[in-house]
């Protein structure tokens, strides 16, 4: 019990500290949102352009200047947070931050969520087989292959895939989460969405499973050397049973908490992938928010990311407490 109580306590304290950091960090960045916005509109992103002072003035009037000292703004921020009001985005004025995030969130959740889970399953399975068939050719190929693939820079692979499969071969669409269909629960949209997400998902599936493969393999190898496995073998239990029910299951433990953590991290979005594929997800939104000094949006995005990771952390710790009695005992 103490174990769980401590975990929850940590969660709350870290959450508060993270919220405070989320408030401070965007404001540390130099740059005036109104000027940046006007310059972007004037130059359409190509660098320098005339900064029309009349437009800057109007933009400032629109975005509003924060009232009060930094501390008062902070208190106001906390109060609004408690009410669930995240403010109005600068970039997408007059839409609220909630509305804007609501647009991007499903895309990231689906792409990142599905690929994380799939990567986990593929990686863990491969790792388990590799451990079971230690030193075989299969093992070598899996270990070496996934290691190398995991080192490839994701943005680089994305560029190559885009050019090869998208433009040259024309097998997949090269931009967007969808194209002509109307979003909603209709077949056309879902089909388009899937078609558009295959390339980005492929890039992820190529580079992500590596962690799971190696982690699972090494843990399982370690477990396979343990005494209880030797005992099981001595008892004459079939190899398959030993592998699945004992070695793999126990080796899965650290990996599952790892999965929980990585799922928590998906709220940060996959910015490089999304940028390469013009995919409307959270990563892209965060990049926009940072470059526009869109404080309300950025704060909330960072909050999502932080809460995601913290909650995942909490769940992982709880899970570990449930699944591994030794952990609970150690803390008591």
């Amino acid at each position: 019990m103490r174990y769980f109580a401590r975990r929850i306590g940590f969660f709350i304290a870290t959450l508060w500290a993270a919220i405070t950091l989320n408030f401070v960090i965007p404001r540390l960045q130099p740059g005036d949102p109104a000027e940046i916005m006007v310059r972007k509109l004037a130059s359409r992103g190509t660098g320098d352009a005339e900064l029309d002072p009349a437009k800057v003035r109007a933009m400032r009037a629109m975005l509003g200047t924060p009232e009060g000292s930094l501390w008062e703004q902070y208190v106001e921020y906390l109060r609004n947070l408690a009410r669930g009001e995240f403010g109005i985005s600068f970039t997408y004025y007059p839409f609220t931050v909630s509305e804007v995030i609501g647009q991007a969130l499903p895309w990231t959740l689906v792409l990142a969520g599905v690929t994380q889970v799939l990567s986990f399953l593929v990686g863990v399975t491969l790792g388990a087989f590799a451990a079971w068939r230690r030193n075989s050719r299969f093992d070598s190929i899996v270990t070496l292959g996934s290691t190398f693939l995991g080192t490839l820079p994701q943005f680089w692979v994305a560029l190559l895939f885009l050019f090869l499969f998208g433009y040259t071969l024309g097998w997949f669409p090269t931009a967007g989460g969808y194209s002509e269909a109307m979003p909603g629960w209709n077949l056309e949209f879902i089909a388009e969405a899937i078609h558009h997400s295959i390339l980005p998902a492929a890039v992820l599936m190529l580079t992500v499973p590596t962690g799971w493969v190696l982690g699972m393999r090494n843990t399982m190898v370690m477990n396979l050397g343990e005494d209880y496995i030797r005992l099981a073998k001595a008892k004459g239990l079939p190899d398959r049973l030993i592998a699945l029910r004992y070695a793999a299951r126990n080796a899965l433990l650290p990996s599952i908490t790892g999965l929980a953590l990585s799922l928590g991290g998906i709220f940060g979005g996959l910015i490089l992938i999304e940028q390469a594929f013009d995919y409307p997800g959270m990563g892209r939104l965060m990049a926009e928010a940072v470059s526009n000094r869109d404080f309300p949006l950025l704060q909330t995005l960072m909050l999502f990311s932080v809460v995601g990771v913290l909650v995942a952390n909490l769940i992982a710790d709880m899970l570990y407490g449930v699944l591994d009695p030794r952990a609970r005992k150690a803390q008591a």
Partner: protein
Amino acid sequence: MTTGTTATRGDGDTATVEGVEPVESPRWYAIVWRSGKARVGIVILAVYVLVAVFAPLIAPYDPTRSDFDQLLEPSADHWLGTNTTGNDIFSQLIYGTRVSLLVGLLGGLLSTAIALVVGLIAGYTEGTLIDEVLSFVTNLAIVVPALPLMIVLVSYSEVRGLPLIVFVIGIISWAGHARAKRSQIITLRNRDFVTAAKFAGDSMWRIVFREIMPNMISLVAAGFVGAATGAIGAEAGLSFLGLGDPGSVSWGTMLYQAQLQGAEAQGLWLWLLAPGLALSILITALVFINFGIDLVGNPHLRDD
């Protein structure tokens, strides 16, 4: 009296076995070298280090020299051609090794150093206020989203140089390692030799750094290699996002430039492929080396 041998297990326990021929316990570097993968990794790393050290001799030109014609095809004068600004791509690739290795080394060191200090103290003082505070800070560091933090840190500094990059990488990445070190030290702390040292009256610092740490070497080493690997990748990522040091030439800045100039659309494949491959091969080599180091700490893997 029976003859016997003392066999040493990796964690310092000993056992006497009767009637067995004496076997020398392998030294750690022999263990690492025995692993085929690690051997390959070490060789590749050595090549990279040599290239970095002798870069001025190997590269035909100064990498920032931009008075060549742009977009030259590969030729005897320019093995990989020139890029859109008129730099020699091959020279840039060679000199880029320096930056990547340097950032990897220093970034890894900084990250490992912070993680070591924080993790060791937290782990050793487990349960006390110091541990609570340090663990709290560690969790916070893990949880804060990296991208905005990186951008703010980089943009806050007037001058963008390699020290800034190393600093940013160190700040972003120490937390994960700290956690691992903390757990490790918690397990070690309860071992007999530590209890003995405590009874002998050794101070905490002495116990931590003289007794516990030597037993953590393999974990620390693996952690360092991992941190260095992460640092190399982080530098590439940072540069690709445009946050790198524009004054230096690294594989990350090469990829960044290539992408800005629309290299795919212009068909400039060598410019895109070369730095990416150089990165991947180096990181793979480091990961292989880590396999070998894992063997030292995890004897069960040694039969490979």
